[in-house]
């Protein structure tokens, strides 16, 4: 199975591990991530305003590219996923945005939200299946208590993202079980870590991240997992000293391909 793949700017730089372990794991599981050509950064945050067209175009180009290949578009970074999925929803449902974006882009064929955007975790759940994944695990992380950190971007707005129940998700917990570990449920798993203000309001970001990490460690988590480079950056500085990993790193480890 071949998927179009949108890595995003951060996975080419500070978050190379998130990308590398995903590719190694995909290979081990029998699917291929084919990077789309000439993708551009999605901008990292969905432009909510109705009159913002230019800031949505890089996402539309990526979506149209996947459509031209006739493939689903896979993402890894929670932020890219959120931006691409929300822009795609605009192209599907907002006639004004759709018309203006197409007028700008002048593609051979109009883009109207046809591409299916799926997160790597959804490929594991819906295509591979967590049962099958479990069978492929050679190094189960037995006994490890792992807290899934969803943050905001994977789940919300639930109506658009449609990954899981936005208030009681389980996709990452099921993933943790599949790699042989024990998921830790804690109240802050789908509350924001404050990452977006980590540049210029370091105090506010620290407050949010410490609230999340101490919630996880209060429920006896030994580590946290995330899909978002910004969560990783911010959470990594937590005062509870809970280590944070990309879910793809644990996946590659469980599949025995981490050092390939």
């Amino acid at each position, binding site marked *: 199975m071949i998927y179009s793949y949108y890595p*995003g*700017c*951060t996975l080419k*730089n*500070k*978050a190379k591990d998130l990308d590398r372990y995903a590719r190694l794991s995909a290979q081990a599981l029998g699917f291929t991530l084919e990077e789309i050509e000439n993708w551009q*950064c999605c*901008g*990292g*945050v*969905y*432009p*909510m*305003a*109705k*009159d*913002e067209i230019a*800031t949505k175009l890089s996402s539309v180009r990526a979506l149209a590219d996947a459509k031209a290949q006739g493939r689903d578009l896979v993402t890894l*970074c929670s*932020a890219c996923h959120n931006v691409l999925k929300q822009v795609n929803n605009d192209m599907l449902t907002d006639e004004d945005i759709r018309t203006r974006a197409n007028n700008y882009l002048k593609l051979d064929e109009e883009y109207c939200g046809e591409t299916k955007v799926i997160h790597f975790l959804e490929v594991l759940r819906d295509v591979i299946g967590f049962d099958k994944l479990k069978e492929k695990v050679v190094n189960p992380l037995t006994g490890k208590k792992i807290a899934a950190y969803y*943050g*905001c*971007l994977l*789940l*919300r*707005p*639930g109506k658009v993202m449609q990954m899981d129940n*936005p*208030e009681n998700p389980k996709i990452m917990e099921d993933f943790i079980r599949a790699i042989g570990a024990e998921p830790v449920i804690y109240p802050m798993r789908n*509350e*924001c870590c*404050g*990452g*977006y*203000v*980590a*540049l*210029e*309001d370091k105090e*506010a970001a620290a*407050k*949010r991240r410490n609230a999340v990490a101490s919630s996880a460690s209060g429920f006896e988590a030994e580590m946290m997992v995330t899909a978002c*480079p*910004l969560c*990783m*950056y911010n959470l*990594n500085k937590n005062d509870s000293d809970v280590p944070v990993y990309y879910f793809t790193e644990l996946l590659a480890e469980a599949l025995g391909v981490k050092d390939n």
Partner: protein
Amino acid sequence: MDRKEEILRISGVNVRKCMRCGKCSGTCPSYDEMEFHPHQFVYMVESGDIEPLLNSDSLYKCLSCFACVERCPRGVEPAKVVEAVRLAAVRQKGNNHLKAENVPELLDDETPQQLLVSAFRKFTK
């Protein structure tokens, strides 16, 4: 154009749907950092009281976390109102909240690109 009309147009939000239950503010992770909370953004825009919002630092404390959007029982989408007022503020000439020359001192070795691009997208025009 009238400021209120401008905000309503940019946001696409129907502020009259709000029943002032305060759930959006109750769930907002930046509550302590904001002088005006999401439900106040909605109400103040509805009543045309826009200037205080345009000049408030609260605009730059919103995390775009969509918690208020998810949890509003009336589907008002307060985050879109906050973003529309923020855009109206930074689109005014010389009003960028983030200045490129101040950025280097805010970085460390681990700062992800994502943080920089999103800050520029949110805080500048």
